[in-house]
C-alpha cells in the first residue's frame, strides 16, 4: 500500500520522541560543563615529563636528554638541549639532564610515539584537554617547567600503567645495586648476574635497555 513505508517511519520517530523522556538509551546528550564524561584510563592528550617527586621537579626529572624522542617524533615538535654537567639519576648512575626541553603543543598531535620509544619512562601522556589559550605563540610552547609533573600525578591518571612502570624501575634499581655490591666486594668467580630482560607482565612499552640508551 502506498503510504505504509511513511507510516512506519513516523512510528519510529514517535517511539524515539516518547523514548527520549524515559529511556536513557534514547537521550544521549551529556550537558558538558555541568556533567563531565569519565575519561578512560588509556586516554592520551599532550605528553608530560615525569619527575620522581613534586618538591624538586627539576632535580628529579627522569629524562636524561638522550634525544631519542626528539628524533622519533613524526612532526618534530620536541627540542632538547643537554646540560654540560652530570647529576646522579634514580639508580645512582651519573647522567646528563636536559637544560631545555620544549614541546610545541601547536604541532604535537598526541600520537604517543615519544612515550613508546623512551627507554627511561621519562615522558608519559597526559589527560588534560581543556587547554585553550588566547596567546597563539608563547602559550603553546611548553618548556620543561610547565611539562614536569610528579610521579604521583602519573599514578593518578594512569594507575595500572604507572604501577607496572614503578615495578620495573624498582627491579632495575635493585639489579643495579646488586651489581654495584658485587663489583664492590672481591671479584666472585661466577659471571655477574645478567641484567634483567623485559619482564613478562610489563606492557610492551619499550624493551628496557637496562639503563644504557640504545644507539
Amino acid at each position: 500500500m502506498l503510504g505504509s513505508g511513511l507510516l512506519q517511519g513516523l512510528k519510529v520517530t514517535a517511539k524515539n520522541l516518547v523514548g527520549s523522556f524515559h529511556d536513557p538509551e534514547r537521550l544521549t546528550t551529556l550537558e558538558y560543563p555541568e556533567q563531565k564524561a569519565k575519561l578512560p584510563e588509556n586516554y592520551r592528550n599532550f605528553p608530560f615529563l615525569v619527575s620522581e617527586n613534586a618538591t624538586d621537579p627539576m632535580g628529579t626529572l627522569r629524562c636524561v636528554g638522550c634525544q631519542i624522542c626528539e628524533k622519533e617524533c613524526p612532526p618534530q615538535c620536541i627540542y632538547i638541549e643537554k646540560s654540560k654537567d652530570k647529576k646522579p639519576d634514580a639508580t645512582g648512575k651519573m647522567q646528563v639532564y636536559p637544560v631545555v626541553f620544549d614541546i610545541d603543543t601547536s604541532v604535537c598531535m598526541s600520537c604517543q610515539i615519544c612515550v613508546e620509544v623512551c627507554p627511561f619512562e621519562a615522558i608519559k601522556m597526559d589527560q588534560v584537554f581543556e587547554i585553550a589559550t588566547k596567546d597563539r605563540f608563547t602559550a603553546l610552547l611548553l618548556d620543561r617547567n610547565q611539562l614536569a609533573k610528579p610521579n604521583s600525578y602519573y599514578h593518578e591518571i594512569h594507575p595500572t600503567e604507572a604501577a607496572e612502570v614503578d615495578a620495573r624501575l624498582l627491579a632495575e634499581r635493585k639489579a643495579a645495586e646488586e651489581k654495584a655490591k658485587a663489583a664492590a666486594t672481591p671479584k666472585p668467580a661466577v659471571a655477574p648476574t645478567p641484567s634483567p630482560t623485559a619482564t613478562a607482565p610489563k606492557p610492551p612499552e619499550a624493551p628496557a635497555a637496562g639503563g644504557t640508551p640504545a644507539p
Partner: protein
Amino acid sequence: MIGATSFSPLLLAAGAGADSFLERLPLVIRDTVAGVFPAPLQWLVGSTLSIVAIVAIFGGIFAGLTLVERKMLGRIQNRPGPNRTGPMGLLQPIADGIKALTKEDIVPRSADHLLHYLAPVALLAFSILTFAVIPFGRNLVPLELDAAVLYFFAAGAASELAIFMAGWASRNKFSLLAAMRALAQLISYELPLLLSFVPIIMLAGTLSMTGIIDAQAGWQLGFIPRWYIFTPWGFAAFVIFLIAALAESNRSPFDLPEAESELIAGHLTEYSGFKYALFFMAEYFGMIALSGMAITLFLGGWRAPLPFLEFIPSYAWFGAKLLVLLLFFIWIRGTFPRLRIDQLTRLAWKFLVPLALVNLGTAAFWSLTSGWSGALQLVRWALTIAMVIGPFVLLGRGLSGTHRPRTYRYA
C-alpha cells in the same frame, strides 16, 4: 461608507452555546473598550482591537512554535533541544528575535532594492490577511464574510507573488532558480488545496465559515461529533488538504525552495537579519492559517469533541486542535526526506488532483444517499469507502510503480 454592512463587528454568537462567563469574555472586553469612545468610532475601535489581538496572540504562538519545533525535533533525535537560554530554553524565541534584529541586514549591491525590501513585507501582509476570516471561537469571528473561504484562498494565492519578488530581486542565479521551483510547487499544489474543500462547500451549502461550523454541529450515535473528518470522503479530503497544506507552506517533504543541500537557501539566500526573520514569520503564519482552515473545515472549528466537554470555552478547543495539527507538521518534518521537483509536481498532478476530483463524486454520492437508513446505511458507508480506497490504490500503484524494497543475492 465602505461596505459598512459587510464589515460587521464581532458577531454575537448565533448558536445557543454555553453562556458561561468565559464564552462571552471576548465580547465583554470589546464592549468595555469600545464603550469609552464616541458612537461612530466604536466600530473602528472594535476592529483595531481584534487586529491587535490577532497579531499579538499569533505572534506569541509563532514565537512559541519556533521553540516547540526545535525542542520536538531535538527529542525525536535523542537530544534535549535548546535548554540553555532561560529555564527550559523558554527565552529562546526572545533570543532569536534579538539576534534577528541586531544582525546586519546585507543587501547585495546589484539587487533591486525596492523589490528586495518589499518582498518580505508583501509575504507577511498576505499571510496575516488570511487570519481575518478564521473563527477562533464562538464569539471570536474577526470578520463575518459570506464568501469567507474564497477570501482565504484569494489572500493565500497572492503570496506566490512575494516569493517571486524575493527570488528576482536578489539577482542571484541560485535564488532565481529556487524562486521558479517555489512557484511551480505553489501553483501545482493550489489546485488540490482548493479541490479538497469543494466537497465541504457542496455539503455545507455555504461559503461562510460559521455556516460550515454550524453544519458540523450535533452528534451521531450520541457521542461521535458530526464532523466532516468522520465521513470517508471527509477523511480523504482531509489527507489531501494536509498534503497540499504542507506543500503550500514549504514544509518538510516539500521544503524544496530552501533545499539546503542543493540551492543553499533558495530565494532566501540574499536575505539576512530581520528580513530573513520576517520570511520565517510569514512561513509560520501560513502554516498556522492553513491548520486553522483545516480545523474549521474538517474538525468542526471550535466545537468540543464530546458532549460533556462543552463547558470548556470554545477558543480553548480551537487552540488544542491547532496545537495537535502543528505538532503533526513538526513530526512530519522530523521524519521524511525531501521530494525532487519533478516527483513533487507529478505527485500533485497525477495523484492528488485526480483523487480530489474523484472525492468530489464520492461526496456527491454521499449527499444524495443521505436519506438511506437502517441496512442501507451500511451499504452507503461501504460504497463510499470503496469509492475512496479504490482510486487511491489504483493511482498509488501508478505513482510509485517501480519503487519497491528489493531483495539481494549473496555471493
